């Protein structure tokens, strides 16, 4: 079967729903899914934040300090660290008045990552939606 591409599309805002967190933890789980697969098979996830879901990408989240739970920000950075691509929709950022300097772009403060956040257009997302085997809407 080889490598199977998955696109996790996150539409929900952070902390109102468990969905964004579950999207990220499921995507990260691709790192250990091989124990259930045949040799040579793998899953290749990408996580894209669209609609109100782009609010998950705002940096400086204080969930641990205020509520004692891991922030969505730390899950996003952990995803980058394990080479899960993180995309954010430029049009939806613009709609909410978000600038690139307000967005989580790297994992430097937790040890660094090879990947950085990719700012993409809706057209790019649509193209990816057509290219992957499975779409998972969160």
């Amino acid at each position, binding site marked *: *079967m080889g490598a*199977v591409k998955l696109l996790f599309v996150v539409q929900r805002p952070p902390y109102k729903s468990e969905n964004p967190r*579950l999207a990220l*933890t499921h995507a990260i789980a691709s790192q250990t*899914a091989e124990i*259930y697969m045949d040799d040579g098979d793998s899953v290749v*996830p990408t996580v894209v934040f669209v609609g109100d879901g782009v609010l998950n990408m705002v940096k400086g989240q204080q969930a641990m300090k205020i509520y004692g739970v891991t922030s969505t920000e730390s899950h996003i950075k952990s995803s980058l660290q394990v080479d899960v691509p993180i995309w954010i929709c430029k049009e939806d950022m613009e709609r909410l008045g978000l600038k690139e300097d307000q967005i989580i772009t790297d994992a430097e403060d937790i040890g660094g990552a090879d990947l950085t956040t990719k700012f993409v257009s809706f057209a790019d997302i649509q193209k990816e939606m057509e290219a992957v*085997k*499975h*779409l998972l809407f969160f």
Partner: protein
Amino acid sequence: MGEFTLGVFPSLVGSMSLDFSFKLAEAAIAKGHKVNMWLSGNAVMMAKKGQKAFKDYSHNEKLMKELMGKGMEVTVCEACAEARGYHKEDVPEGMKRASMDWYLAKTVKTDKLLHIGGE
């Protein structure tokens, strides 16, 4: 005959989406397909045996057991279940517990994946 995987995230009570997931699984099995079901998020409420059926609330345990008897593989997210206080000894007979990588691995071989998101 194909293989169909359902990723199911809605809660047992609050919407009919979980009920719909089981109805869809039932229809797929009736057509001869192999069905896998991943229960995560609030859908892990299904991982508690002995739920009482009231007419005012959704109750899917009976149908789930029937479908498992017909070969449906049901696995529940272990972390989501433990976070809600549903432990290994609470799980209905035949249901498995695993980490999220089980679901990811199923996406490789399955012909169709339908992800039914939570609230």
